[in-house]
């Protein structure tokens, strides 16, 4: 089994077929991969926008309660995903605040994006913030001195802090795409709709089909590896 697992892990990046017959068709596997990527990439993109903005605001400005905000962000990195799932479920449930105003979000991908956003945003914010704060004041002073606008200064800082920021985004992605607790609760693991790699793994394991569960796990690892490689390349080198 180990050999076939390795073969699949290596193959899944290429277009070679899976070596093991899944209990459901190939199309279903691709759909699971698609849902996983769709949910986690959107969640991470939104989290990155949010996280970078907050990291800049908190990193560059001094204001009363700043250290409290930082403590809050750092605490958010440790939110248990099941608890986040429950809170999001109550928010999107037809009885909850979002349901009351007419959104039907429960058991949808949008609800899963929301819960992964809550999970990933603190991680991305926290790590980016640390990177931004770490940028030598001299760099920013120099940017000012050379006549840069606030935007130029911010861009210079981001460039200096980019390795830390990319690490933050990758950590956020890792947290989002690999968690099972919250997407299972708010998504419901509906076949073809809200079934992700992690909830499919959980389902396979529940039914004692450990081999398929492990193969899906290998696909997940290969995907994360691939995304890591791409992002690091875009980000311009080693971290």
């Amino acid at each position, binding site marked *: 089994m180990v050999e076939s697992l390795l073969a699949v892990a290596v193959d899944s990046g290429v277009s070679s077929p899976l070596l093991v017959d899944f209990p459901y068709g190939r199309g279903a596997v691709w759909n699971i991969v698609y849902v996983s990527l769709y949910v986690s990439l959107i969640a991470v993109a939104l989290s990155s926008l949010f996280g970078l903005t907050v990291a800049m605001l908190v990193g560059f400005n001094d204001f009363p309660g700043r250290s409290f905000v930082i403590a809050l962000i750092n605490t958010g990195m440790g939110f248990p995903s099941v608890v986040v799932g429950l809170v999001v479920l109550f928010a999107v*449930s*037809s*009885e909850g605040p979002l*349901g009351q105003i*007419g*959104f*039907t*979000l*429960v*058991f*949808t*991908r*949008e609800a899963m994006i929301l819960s992964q956003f809550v999970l990933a945003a603190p991680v991305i914010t926290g790590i980016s913030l640390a990177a931004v704060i770490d940028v030598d004041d001299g760099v920013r002073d120099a940017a000012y001195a050379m006549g840069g606008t606030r935007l130029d200064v911010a861009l210079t800082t981001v460039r200096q802090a980019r390795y830390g920021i990319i690490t933050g985004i990758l950590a956020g992605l890792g947290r989002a795409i690999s968690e099972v607790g919250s997407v299972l609760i708010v998504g*419901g*693991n*509906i*076949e073809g*709709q*809200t079934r992700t790699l992690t909830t499919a793994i959980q389902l396979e*394991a*529940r*039914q*004692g*089909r450990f081999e398929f569960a492990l193969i899906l796990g290998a696909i997940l690892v290969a995907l994360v590896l691939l995304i890591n490689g791409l992002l690091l390349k875009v980000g311009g080198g080693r971290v």
Partner: protein
Amino acid sequence: MDRRRFLTLTGGSVATALAGCLGSDDTNESEPTAEILGETLTLTTTTSTYDTGLLSEVNDAFEKRFGAAVDTVAQGTGAALETGRRGDSDIVMVHARRLEDDFIGEGYGVNRRDLMFNDFIVVGPDDDPAGIDGMDEVTDAFTAIADTEAVFISRGDNSGTHAKELDIWEAVDIDPGGEWYRETGSGMGEVLNQAQLEGGAYALSDRATFISQRSELDELDICVEGPIEDGPELLSNPYGIVAVNPGVHDHVNYDLAIAYIGFVTSRQGEEIIESYTAAGEQLFFPEAIAENPNFQQYVPEDWVPDS
């Protein structure tokens, strides 16, 4: 599910959607397609109906006949009913009459039907340390397990199977606890896996899940049979289906839920359930159709009219 949201935005409630359906039929005669085409029914159910594969069979046939998709969310009976209580599902298919009665009694469910049954069995390791193999009474078996403190793995998840297990412990007046009694809080398949990985342990299982997973469970044997194999009536496992009350949650897709109930309790539904097998064995026995219907299926078991 996008379709659902689309519906919510355009239609709002089932009533409005229905009205829209009638309206569009007048104006759009060139397309004789029904409005329920493309609608989605959300069904919460137990892991046993889902993991055995029965539901995908039933739902495919329903989809073919009505053109409406079924989103199935597999939870325990307790969680499935709770989702219905919040109005997040349109219909609930579960197997714990006591919990279903609470659900109906509180007004959350209407139009309950008996659907099908199978039975519970007690499975255990080959070497049978508690010596319960072949016992006629499940109560004796449970007493023996507790007396010998043989490892027993409990669902512990407020599911239908867990509710049944607690009923049996109550019947023998034992409050299980200690090293040997493991409350796992997980699904039926996981409990069976755990019993298997344990090198064999006792557990109460529904027959369907055990049969459909049997090929992975070589350490386990059936020790006490249920009523299907002439075991005690206490181990019967009836499944019911209930629509969520549109009077409490006016956004639920009630008409489609009733269509689904109608479908699974029809001759065609009966045939699908009857002919569904795993490892050559029939898993579920339909009981919806009867010449003399059991009126008690529509109301909580202890319900009496006011007047």
